[in-house]
């Protein structure tokens, strides 16, 4: 996918907002700030952003977004946000795969297909907003 000027600007804006959310929520290692532009460069060529960053003492935040151009607008067509513990288990993970309509209590999701799984695989409602996932991860880490 070759992004046109306007689409490149939209993708840069999206990546910048993720950078702001991450750096506002966590005290990230110095090399994250150095490496992030290269991650964005890669996204401009591949149409997908993949950020992995250590948060807290033993957790990793992995954010993956795939972009599409819809009527000249950049949209996140697929995403996978993961909070992973030291053993590699997904502590929290959010995605927009269309296979869930209800949460684990059989109540309709508030923003389908967006949902979040806890470490036991139970499905919870999720807004689909990466900022909410980051804020949730921050709260989880501060209460552990």
């Amino acid at each position, binding site marked *: *996918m*070759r992004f046109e000027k306007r689409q490149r600007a939209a993708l*840069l804006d999206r990546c*910048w907002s993720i*950078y702001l959310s991450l*750096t506002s929520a966590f*005290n*990230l*290692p*110095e090399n*994250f*700030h150095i490496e*992030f*532009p*290269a991650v*964005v*460069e*890669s996204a*401009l*060529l*591949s*149409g*997908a952003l993949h950020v992995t960053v250590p948060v807290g003492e033993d957790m990793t935040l992995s954010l*993956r977004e*795939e972009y599409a151009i819809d009527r000249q607008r950049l949209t996140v067509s*697929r995403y*996978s946000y*993961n909070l992973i513990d030291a053993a590699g288990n*997904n502590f929290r*993970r959010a*995605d927009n*795969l269309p*296979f*869930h309509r209800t949460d684990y209590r059989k109540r309709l999701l508030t923003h389908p297909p967006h949902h979040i799984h806890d470490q036991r695989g139970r499905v919870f409602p999720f807004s689909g907003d990466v900022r909410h996932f980051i804020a949730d991860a921050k709260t989880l880490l501060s209460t552990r």
Partner: protein
Amino acid sequence: MSSPKKPRRMTKKQFVKAVAGGTLSANQVIGKIVDELQLYERKYGMRSEVFYALIPGTPAEDQPDFLNWAICYRSYFRALQSKFPLKELARYAV
């Protein structure tokens, strides 16, 4: 007691400048994606083409590795397309 040094956050101007002045080539991006695809292929003993024909679009995709693998596989083709834009390839059409 001094507090731990907080890494300096980029400004948006610095960020845009760093991305625009980057030196990553399409080959490097494709190489990284291929490395990741090969990790999944070794882990699950399956070629990416076979995985992609079988799993995405089914409920089995709702597993972190499979979801990431599918995104990675599609981004491989997008990166290839960046290297060889369709306009350029059209020359070779018969």
